[in-house]
């Protein structure tokens, strides 16, 4: 069992992608875990990560100066916010659940429904400047003025980008944030330790692992690799319609939450969302792309049923019959004991050290 799990983990583990920068940056990773690929134009450095960390927790990056990246991606919550749907700086209610920022340096594609966003340097611009919906609400000019005017930030940029004569720019801000986010690596859960032969899992957790890896449940078809968010062969991530809704008998999802369709315009992409990581589930509830899975048990029940039937409220419909549902979401029989075992295993993917690691915490929290 451990061999199979390890194979699944390593099959799409990190590799040195072409065009990435070699670095002597100390990632602090356990033996056997490679660092994520790093873009050639944004090599890692201690100074850049420190700057990125400071920016990540800087409230001035938002229009109301009351919101930082680290607020909506709170370390204690596995770098999520605990809401069903995220809330922007102007109070905008987003259509999606805030994704956990964990192991994102290993991801091939970021965000719930945009496969074209491939790098963290590109992605961080979305919450900073996006207006549908507004997240941070700043303009590039405002941020550059902040970077230039603040002596501490100014010095931080000079240290992080020593070869750049005018380093206090938005592209460099994105590079620094991305560098910090690449360090948010969680590979020390009980499951990881068990894989490395350093710890044990309970009988229930091992039975849950068996179920997770079984053909009957088929979880690993989408949830494999270091981040448990990719197919086992390391190919492109899956954008799956789980059959959560069918508002009109034709597969419609609630407005604004139509998934990949909103990026591609292809009706067949209705309700398709990127497979999320299974890391740190203990702290990242609620689940699903719109936070409508309140508990892990709820999520397991939906997948076991082959989709969700909503019998009340504004979204009445039988998601199981959604014509766009992923063909792998066929449902499976699960006894109450098996359900408990599966959830027990899923919780072994949570890494307590990650959510308490001082390297990832707000550097000035104690001063506030």
């Amino acid at each position, binding site marked *: 069992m451990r061999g199979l799990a390890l194979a699944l983990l390593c099959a799409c583990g990190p590799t040195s992608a072409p065009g990435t920068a070699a670095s002597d940056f100390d990632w602090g990773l356990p033996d056997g875990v490679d660092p994520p690929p790093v873009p050639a134009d944004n090599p890692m450095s201690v100074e850049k990560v420190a700057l990125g960390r400071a920016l990540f927790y800087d409230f001035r990056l938002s229009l109301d100066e009351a919101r930082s990246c680290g607020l909506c991606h709170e370390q204690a919550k596995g770098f999520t916010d*605990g809401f*069903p749907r995220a809330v922007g700086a102007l*109070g905008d209610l987003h259509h999606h659940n805030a994704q956990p920022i964990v192991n994102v340096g290993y991801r091939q594609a970021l965000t719930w429904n945009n496969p074209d966003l491939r790098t963290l340097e590109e992605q961080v611009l979305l919450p900073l400047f996006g207006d549908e919906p507004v997240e941070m609400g700043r303009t590039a000019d405002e941020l550059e003025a902040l970077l230039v005017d603040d002596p501490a930030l100014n010095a931080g940029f000079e240290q992080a980008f020593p070869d750049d004569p005018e380093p206090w720019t938005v592209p460099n801000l994105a590079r620094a944030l991305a560098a910090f986010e690449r360090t948010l690596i969680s590979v020390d859960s009980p499951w990881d330790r068990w894989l490395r032969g350093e710890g044990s899992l309970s009988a229930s957790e091992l039975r849950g692992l068996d179920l997770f890896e079984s053909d009957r449940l088929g979880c690993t078809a989408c949830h494999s690799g270091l981040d448990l968010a990719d197919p086992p062969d390391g190919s492109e991530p899956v954008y799956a319609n789980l059959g959560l809704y069918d508002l009109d008998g034709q597969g419609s999802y609630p407005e604004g939450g139509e998934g990949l369709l909103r990026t591609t315009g292809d009706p067949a992409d209705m309700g398709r969302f990127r497979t999320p990581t299974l890391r740190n589930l203990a702290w990242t509830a609620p689940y699903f792309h719109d936070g409508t899975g*309140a508990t892990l048990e709820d999520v397991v029940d939906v997948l076991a049923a082959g989709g969700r039937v909503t019998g*009340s409220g504004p979204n009445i419909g039988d998601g199981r019959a959604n014509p766009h549902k992923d063909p792998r979401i066929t449902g499976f029989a699960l006894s109450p004991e098996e359900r408990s075992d599966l959830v027990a295993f899923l919780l072994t993917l949570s890494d307590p050290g990650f959510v308490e690691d001082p390297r990832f915490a707000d550097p000035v929290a104690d001063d506030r």
Partner: protein
Amino acid sequence: MPNRLLCALPVVLLACAQDEPAPATSGPQDVITEVTTSSTTTPSTTTSTTTTTPTGGTTTSFAIGPNDAIAQAGCDLFLGNPTNLVAVDNQGDAGQVVIQPSAAESWMVALPQTEQGYFTLEIGEWDTTQAFFAYADNSYGVWVADGDIQYERFLNGACPNEGITDQRMFFDHWTPATIRFEVNGPRDAWFAVVKES
């Protein structure tokens, strides 16, 4: 700190509600107005009382609350056009129906044909007091991760004859809250939440 801010937990509420005097400037006035409901469920307050009527219903009495700008905002919303909202019939699905506090919008919540209706309120700020307005005939609860929040519920002091209540709740952290309406009053339950501070 107003006494209502001290009562973050039900157990604490009981102690606070009995021991804390009403605020001198914005607390309840000494006028008791009675409204009739059709259930035995009442809010947990010290300023409301419930008695059984000859017809089997109950009479809930609320003290009249503060007549301030926030209470007036609740009255203004009550006189406006509410947005329709459909509640779900189980807590697990509450995340499918999400609203936020608003000084510009109230809701007419269609309750399901079951005992309770649910939806989610996302409070996206820290250290805020939110004013909840609802028909006095409807009982509701506010649930966060730590459990039910209970504060005193008053008749809206800015428009006490409209039959709507005013309940101020303090939230020290941003949080989703599950709103649970008991189906003991009108099936279409008017509801509004306005940030006080």
